[in-house]
């Protein structure tokens, strides 16, 4: 028997598979497809202080082995999530959930983390400083070590829940941002968010997305995500949740061997609503084939040839 459990800052997950924020709503659309309690956890849709409609449509464009989205953090706002979504979620998900929080100022991040941190259903908070689709005020905190550290410090003051900072891949040196977050007190890191990309509608001679650019996700970004997880895991001593293009149990194992303690699955849920269920079910077989008895052993198992 293979032991699939992994631990994130003291939180024990039954397995390392976690649907990624923005691809799983608040769970409601998936609960009819399968029993969500088979998941390690899930990260709910990025939630902000105020309700947001998000960007104009089209918000979605197709790519080879991936997709662009420019949803722009559509969500009902933190108060509605606490009032309506969390109580409803209790009926179909009986494990600690990951609260994904977005924001446009340090104060907003603080407000949301303080409020959501008080909810007992929340196992850890994932702070998204890296959404490529919203640039109000022109600030993307995740682009600089200073910005990411400022948010980290601020939210750590207002909650006792473990705080994971979700990093942007659209940077020259992700390890610098990662280290800054660690020094600022982050309990862990989530990476990667989407790569900034674009498509053009030839017939109409304009960008496909109303927002011009959007975030690339899906298998296309897996090698970049894996590289960044590897780099960051070698640069910090806090746990890393790896994501980006994972769509199979083998890729979960690759992410973990690169240094991830748990793995999120995003776009794959959209093209196959059963993606996470299939991955959870395939994991024991993959681990057995690799001669690994405990999923947690996978973390960082791959050794650099040059190190």
């Amino acid at each position: 028997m293979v032991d699939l459990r992994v631990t994130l800052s003291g939180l024990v997950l039954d397995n390392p598979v976690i649907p990624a924020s923005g691809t799983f709503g608040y769970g409601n659309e998936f609960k009819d497809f399968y029993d969500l309690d088979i998941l390690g956890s899930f990260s709910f849709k990025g939630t902000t202080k105020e309700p947001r409609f998000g960007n104009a449509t089209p918000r979605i464009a197709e790519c080879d082995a991936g997709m662009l989205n420019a949803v722009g953090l559509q969500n009902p706002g933190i108060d509605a999530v606490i009032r309506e979504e969390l109580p409803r979620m209790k009926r179909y998900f009986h494990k600690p959930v990951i609260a994904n929080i977005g924001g446009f100022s340090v104060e907003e991040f603080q407000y949301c983390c303080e409020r959501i941190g008080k909810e007992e259903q929340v196992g850890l908070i994932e702070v998204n400083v890296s959404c490529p689709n919203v640039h109000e005020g022109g600030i993307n905190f995740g682009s600089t070590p200073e910005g990411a550290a400022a948010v980290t410090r601020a939210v750590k003051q207002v909650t006792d829940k473990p705080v994971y900072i979700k990093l942007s891949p659209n940077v020259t040196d992700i390890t610098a941002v990662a280290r800054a977050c660690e020094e600022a007190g982050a309990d862990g890191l989530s990476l990667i968010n989407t790569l900034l990309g674009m498509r053009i509608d030839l017939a109409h001679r304009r960008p496909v997305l109303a927002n011009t650019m959007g975030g690339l996700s899906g298998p296309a970004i897996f090698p970049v995500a894996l590289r960044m997880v590897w780099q960051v895991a070698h640069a910090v001593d806090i746990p890393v949740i790896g994501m980006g293009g994972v769509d199979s149990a083998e890729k979960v194992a690759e992410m973990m061997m690169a240094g991830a303690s748990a793995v999120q699955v995003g776009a794959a849920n959209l093209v196959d609503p059963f993606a996470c269920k299939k991955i959870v079910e395939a994991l024991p077989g993959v681990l057995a084939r690799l001669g690994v008895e405990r999923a947690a052993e996978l973390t960082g198992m791959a050794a650099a040839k040059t190190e």
Partner: protein
Amino acid sequence: MQKQGLYTIQENAPLTRDVYRMVLAGDTSAVTAPGQFVNVRLDGCYLRRPISIADWDDATITLIYKVVGEGTRRMAGMGGPGAALDLLVGLGNGYDLAACGAAPVLLGGGVGVPPLYGLAKRLWRQGRPPAVLLGFNTAADVFYEQEFRDLGCPTMVATADGSYGQKGFVTDLLNTAGMRYDYFYTCGPEPMLRAVYSACACPGQLSFEERMGCGFGACMGCSCKTKYGSKRICKDGPVLAKEEVVW
């Protein structure tokens, strides 16, 4: 409740030079209303392709689709023994048949026509045979006129270039002498929906299209603003009541 499954291709043949009809066999229990759609997985395409259910029965689903890009091109090439498609079935709200009034009219344009067929059949069964107005670009594009007639529906066709039926748009057919209606159902390209919205004083329902990520309400890719807040075209739509549309 939405279902995912493999559906066997029973028929896949052209209706016009670029519009095909595909009949698929499999579990249809998830289909609850005309105007719902399926989301089709295709090798080599990352996202699924949303296609309206043109008709269905206990064992089959009929799709009518136009070849416009890579995905629909692949669909058109499929068939042969054992060929099957991975579908998500039972997506969307579909048309509300209860609201149909005493004299419903159906207005369809191009590949907006298909879902109206399943709708017409069920309105007819409900004792409310609708008038059917179909718009196409040109004579060669016309399909399903006879099928609607065979249902017993008075059916008229307009073509933009006048090469078949009346010259003009589908909304022009509303002015036909003797035309009486108190409720409309429509599906077609957005300019047509706007024209119908303006032309029909009565209440009605419009079916919308949007680029989709998932098709089952998870990604917020297809949101639109309505008078009652934001709705997902894939889950809360694709059919919206006229009175909630913001135009």
